[in-house]
């Protein structure tokens, strides 16, 4: 059985439960989805730290209640932004450690989350889809999708784009083709491991990390570009925890890459939109977890005819879409509730298009739009760009 939380004992004991983590600092809008919903102290970030303390002191035993508290958190990391104390930068790590220990003590994860761990182990994706179908998203544009032994850039499609948001994969390929860069996709791509890392199911993590790193090495790629915020965060932040980093390999989110291309004049946007108001949702894994806020905005602002109106909670204060941390599978309805709040916030800007930069955000925001019968149009930035090239 693991004892991951002991590694964070000092940080856990640092928390006085001052409550600053519960709201956006200096703004006092809500920041914590699970705290806002369930309201008991235990569901807030400070509550989780004190649960960890209770476990360390033997005053609490692993239980289903603890499981529900821990796994209802989308791991959005808003608390890390709002906490003003020295332990602020490891809060999400602590929650993941708690989850890992919950799993090893047989208490977690939620049954629906176990399913995707098994699928990742067997088929290298959380959707229980056949691994051999990983490149089926190419259908209709096969000739446009490069598959090479070696290339400067590996386009890491990610599981959600490969199996669920295939349009996004296709749009990304079309844009990459426009830039003229030397890139390839690979049928040998496996899940980045994010779903199992976030839910404490760590048994296969080292395997998936090593496999993907070997793939990058095999292709000789100097850059890995992904259109999934989750994959981006995982490769950039988590991979180094499990394996030695590949020297000289740069991990880029598609928005970072496209910003570079636009600024270098390698991607032109000849078409124009007519007075379109858009707003942009910062995916947690791209924004808060990885610090990428400006690249997507720079792209939006480069699009002729588009005005960007920001929502009230943006950048490091952005409200989560509700899909992350296993919440989409563990708490389906509530996950959409969280997203609905984001849709409402988007509507308040008066925008016609809500943009994002993560296929998983897109899935959940789409579900919320449907549930609320909202008229707002949702697109990934790549989708929008694809219409303009």
């Amino acid at each position, binding site marked *: 059985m693991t004892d991951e939380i002991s590694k964070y004992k*000092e*940080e856990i004991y*640092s928390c006085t439960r001052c409550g600053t983590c519960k709201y956006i600092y200096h703004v006092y809008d809500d920041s914590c989805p699970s705290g806002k919903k369930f309201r008991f102290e235990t569901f807030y970030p400070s509550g989780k730290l004190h649960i960890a303390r209770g476990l360390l002191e033997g005053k609490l035993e692993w239980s289903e209640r603890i499981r529900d508290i821990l796994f209802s958190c989308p791991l959005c990391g808003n608390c890390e932004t709002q906490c003003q104390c*020295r*332990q*602020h*930068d*490891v809060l999400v790590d602590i929650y993941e450690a708690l989850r890992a220990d919950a799993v090893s003590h047989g208490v977690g994860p939620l049954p629906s989350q176990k399913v995707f761990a098994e699928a990742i182990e067997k088929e290298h994706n959380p959707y229980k889809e056949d691994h051999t179908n990983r490149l089926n998203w190419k259908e209709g544009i096969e000739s446009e999708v490069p598959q090479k032994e070696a290339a400067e850039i590996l386009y890491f499609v990610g599981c959600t784009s490969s199996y669920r948001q295939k349009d996004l994969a296709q749009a990304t390929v079309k844009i990459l083709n426009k830039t003229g860069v030397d890139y390839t996709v690979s049928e040998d791509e496996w899940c980045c491991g994010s779903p199992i890392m976030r839910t404490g199911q760590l048994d296969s993590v080292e395997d998936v990390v090593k496999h993907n790193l070997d793939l990058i090495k095999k292709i000789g790629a100097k850059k890995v570009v992904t259109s999934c915020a989750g994959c981006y965060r995982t490769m950039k932040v988590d991979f180094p925890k499990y394996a030695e980093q590949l020297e000289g390999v740069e991990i880029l989110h598609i928005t970072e890459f496209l910003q570079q291309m636009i600024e270098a004049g390698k991607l032109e946007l000849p078409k124009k939109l007519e007075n379109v108001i858009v707003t942009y949702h910062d995916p947690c894994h791209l924004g808060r977890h990885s610090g990428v806020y400006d690249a997507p905005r720079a792209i939006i602002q480069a699009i002729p005819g588009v005005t960007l109106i920001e929502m009230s909670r943006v950048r490091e204060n952005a409200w989560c879409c509700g899909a992350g941390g296993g919440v989409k599978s563990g708490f389906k309805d509530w996950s959409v509730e969280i997203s609905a709040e984001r849709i409402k916030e988007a509507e308040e800007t008066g925008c016609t298009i809500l943009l994002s930069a993560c296929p998983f955000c897109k899935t959940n925001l789409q579900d919320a739009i449907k549930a609320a019968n909202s008229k707002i149009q949702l697109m990934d930035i790549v989708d929008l760009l694809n219409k303009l090239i």
Partner: protein
Amino acid sequence: MEVWEGPTDILGIGLYHSITSRMNEDSDYRQFINDLELNVVVDLGFYPLMIKFKKESLEITRVIEKADVTLKVNAQDLFDLTEGKSSMIWFFLKRKLKIKPFLKLFKVYKIFSKAF
């Protein structure tokens, strides 16, 4: 977890913050400080502090060793300086700011005019 950097005496904290925050804001200043090798004693009228510019590192200590240059100014005058009520040059001319040896004036000015 965030870790405290720098000294824990109040004047040392002020000096350390003044220099390092300017280094974070100004890449030229950062380069200048990172290239510096100099021991400066600063006396603000409470107790002397030694600032060791050691190429890529900065140490501020109450342990006084041999100094390359000594800077003396009282705390009130320092506050007036940093509030923009006067300038280092004017204070130097008015003997409110004393620098020894005089030849290090330019270097001292370069270090502290940006920090203050």
